[in-house]
């Protein structure tokens, strides 16, 4: 049978009503409290919030668990399980007042003992919490009454509050921690309760009737793993899923706007060309500046994501967003690039190799090719080496590269973003490939400063230092997309990657 015959047969079956096309699925009314199916190429892998690193794990568990504070759509820290907080003792003590009347899924009431147990579990080496460093400065976690928790830090550290917003530091029942059931039976305070996980296939949650914010309208939320974005688009149009989480603008454009709401949001990450500045030609600051000036970020943005994003500096979003994006060359300036090459004693240019991994970032090869052609105009030869994901990660962690196209997670707080790369004793100092006393001091100053004006000044200095010395070449921030059936009301994609689905608590199906 040929494909034409197949299509003809399907047409006949549809015409006779034998096959339910689901065509009306996008507009068919759902029963109140019905099931919302979200298609994503990713799959939920772990259900212990302290050990997850996969974005979808964060998003799924972010509906089940809650944190002491959270970031809102404007990337400001707002209340979650803590209703208020205050720094004291020269920013070395943080006191948090807890929300009252909050219940876990097991029916028990949340108290300060649960918060203490949760944060201590995150700090324990055996847990291997990748965000434990966010509370690395905390030397003591203590309950001060049933609804008050006091964190004592070894040094002034206002960024600890930002760190508390990650799902890796979610609050769970002390009894479940003691019983060792967290890794198998999620038990949180969020709007949804864990229902089931089918490995590599689906993750299902049901509305939490005891949620302190009120029982969600949507009864069941299922995250369905669909291996390719094209198949997600197909499932949307067939009406079998109501929301598709996508990253490729080309796929989004194939879906008709007449039947769906297309949402896009600059995600909390950034693309950069990370440089190893301690050896080879990139040791010369003027050689790096030449790269920064010869880079046409607009062209890279166009080639990589069809212009659907924003050119950014070290801090892409939030109150301390870098502006202008570079202290030396906010836009392409080949003449200045050549001047820097001359100052570096490399008038004829130089060559270096950049690694990419299209497994990890499908746009990285396009970024690299665009940059290669721009740099060639001033005599800089950039070789490109594309690696499989794990090979890339290994080389990246060991600093075995001259330059690496990377998509890194961002945060509104520059200390949270760059303390791990350039701070004193930074965990990621090796892949960062650059260190300086001035950067360490700037990071520390911003972290210790609790006034908004003071921090703005400190972070401006940091931005200028990073871009003025062309430590790395910051490129752009791209959009994340959600294609939403018109039957879904009240869903808004959050810019915070790890809690993109948080608005489902207030969404409904018509």
């Amino acid at each position, binding site marked *: 049978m040929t494909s034409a015959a*197949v299509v003809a047969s399907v047409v006949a079956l549809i015409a006779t009503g034998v096959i339910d*096309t689901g065509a009306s699925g996008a507009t068919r009314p759902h029963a109140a409290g019905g099931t919302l199916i979200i298609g994503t190429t990713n799959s939920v892998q772990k259900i212990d919030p302290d050990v997850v*690193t996969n974005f979808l794990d964060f998003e799924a568990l972010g509906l089940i668990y809650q944190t002491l504070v959270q970031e809102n759509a404007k990337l400001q820290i707002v209340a979650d399980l803590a209703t208020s907080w205050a720094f004291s003792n020269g920013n070395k003590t943080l006191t948090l007042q807890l929300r009252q009347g909050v219940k876990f899924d097991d029916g028990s009431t949340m108290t300060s003992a649960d918060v203490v147990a949760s944060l201590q579990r995150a700090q324990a080496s055996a847990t291997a919490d990748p965000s434990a460093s966010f509370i690395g400065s905390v030397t003591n976690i203590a309950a001060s009454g049933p609804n008050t928790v006091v964190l004592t830090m070894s040094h002034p550290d206002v960024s600890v509050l930002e760190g508390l917003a990650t799902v890796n530091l979610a609050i769970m029942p002390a009894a479940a921690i003691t019983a060792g059931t967290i890794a198998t039976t999620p038990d949180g305070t969020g709007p949804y309760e864990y229902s089931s996980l089918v*490995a590599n296939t689906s993750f299902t949650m049901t509305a939490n009737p005891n949620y302190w914010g009120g029982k969600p309208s949507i009864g069941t939320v299922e995250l*369905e793993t669909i291996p*390719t974005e094209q198949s997600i688009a197909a499932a949307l149009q067939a009406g079998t899923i109501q929301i598709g989480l996508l990253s490729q603008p080309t796929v989004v454009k194939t879906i008709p706007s007449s039947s769906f709401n297309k949402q896009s949001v600059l995600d909390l990450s950034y693309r950069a060309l990370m440089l190893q500045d301690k050896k080879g030609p990139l040791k010369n600051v003027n050689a790096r500046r030449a790269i920064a000036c010869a880079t046409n970020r607009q062209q890279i943005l166009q080639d990589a994501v069809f212009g659907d994003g924003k050119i950014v500096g070290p801090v892409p979003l939030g109150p301390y967003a870098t502006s202008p994006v570079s202290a030396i060359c906010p836009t392409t300036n080949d003449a200045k690039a050549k001047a820097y090459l001359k100052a570096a004693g490399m008038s004829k240019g130089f060559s270096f190799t950049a690694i990419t991994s299209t497994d990890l970032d499908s746009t990285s090869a396009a970024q690299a090719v665009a940059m290669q052609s721009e740099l060639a105009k001033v005599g800089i030869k950039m070789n490109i080496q594309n690696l499989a994901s794990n090979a890339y990660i290994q080389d990246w962690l060991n600093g075995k590269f001259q330059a690496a196209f990377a998509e890194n997670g961002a945060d509104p707080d520059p200390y949270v973003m760059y303390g791990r790369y350039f701070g004193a004793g930074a965990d*990621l100092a090796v892949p960062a490939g650059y260190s300086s006393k001035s950067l360490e001091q700037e990071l520390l100053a911003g972290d210790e400063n609790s006034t908004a004006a003071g921090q703005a000044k400190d972070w401006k200095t940091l931005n200028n230092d990073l871009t003025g010395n062309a430590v790395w070449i910051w490129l752009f921030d791209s959009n994340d997309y959600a294609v939403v059936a018109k039957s879904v009301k009240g869903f808004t994609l959050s810019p915070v990657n790890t809690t993109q689905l948080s608005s489902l608590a207030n969404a409904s199906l018509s």
Partner: protein
Amino acid sequence: MTLFLSIVRRAFSVLLTLWGVSVIVFVVLRLLPGNAVTAAVGVSEGLLTKAQLAALNHYYGVGQPAIQQYFSWLHATLTGNLGISLVSREAVSALIGASLPVTLELAIVSMILGVLIGVGFGMWSGLHPGRWQDDVGQTVSVMGLAIPSFILGTVLVVILSTKFHYFPSSKTFAGLFTNPWLNIQQIIFPALVLSLGVGAAILRTTRAAVLEVSGLNFARTALGKGVSRSAFIWRHLFLNALTAVVTMSGIQLGYLLGGTVIIEQIFILPGMGRLLITSINNRDFPVVQSVTLIFAAGFVLVNLLVDVAYNVIDPRTRKR
């Protein structure tokens, strides 16, 4: 050699092949950069303290000597324990138990469709050499061989979903016995895509065999003796061409198992192919090793069955 001895010899060969596959897969997986920890935490590995990393290495079994890992896995496998998935912490046998029926069903339906297409068009073509029926058969054959299944699958999905709002595979997979009607809808399209490639190869083989057999003396004699056309086609031509058709079908079934890997991705079928790709990406070694071994076992088992089928179809082979 008797039929029994022939089967024993082939069975020994099968076991040797499977052992070889297990060694190759084990070595290749270890040669890949990274490990289960890298796959699980990605660049966040750099944020872990030494104590945290040690805890994770212990959790994932990273760092044990490779030989110890291999024999530990082999011993467990031979005793029926395929181990635990490093990612989901579920028993590998449970993961395979859930996905194997999907792939088997897809492969069997594809094979049936492929044989129908291949033998049907092949006979039709071979009985009308040089005429328009032959041209039709050759066209089907060339299309089936030339169009990669992933392109055909993608095009089919796009057409069905955008033009007819129909993509049954995107619904939660329904078992054959739990919801047969939905199951058939979910299997039939990927099976059709796979069957075209399979059918094309069988078609060419069938056509060539029919042409060859119809030119032999016994065929002309049969026609001269006044055998009816249908008896001539099915008793004389078809049965004598069957050996070649069975050979090609066996080979194609083996390749078809490989083809399911990509087709399951496109049609969102939770089969062994999807499990394999996900597990490779996650460096989930116990799952990859077991799934690969099962694919290999399927391939050699099919070849064994083909050999047995020769003996049944053609008694002359038993005397060699």
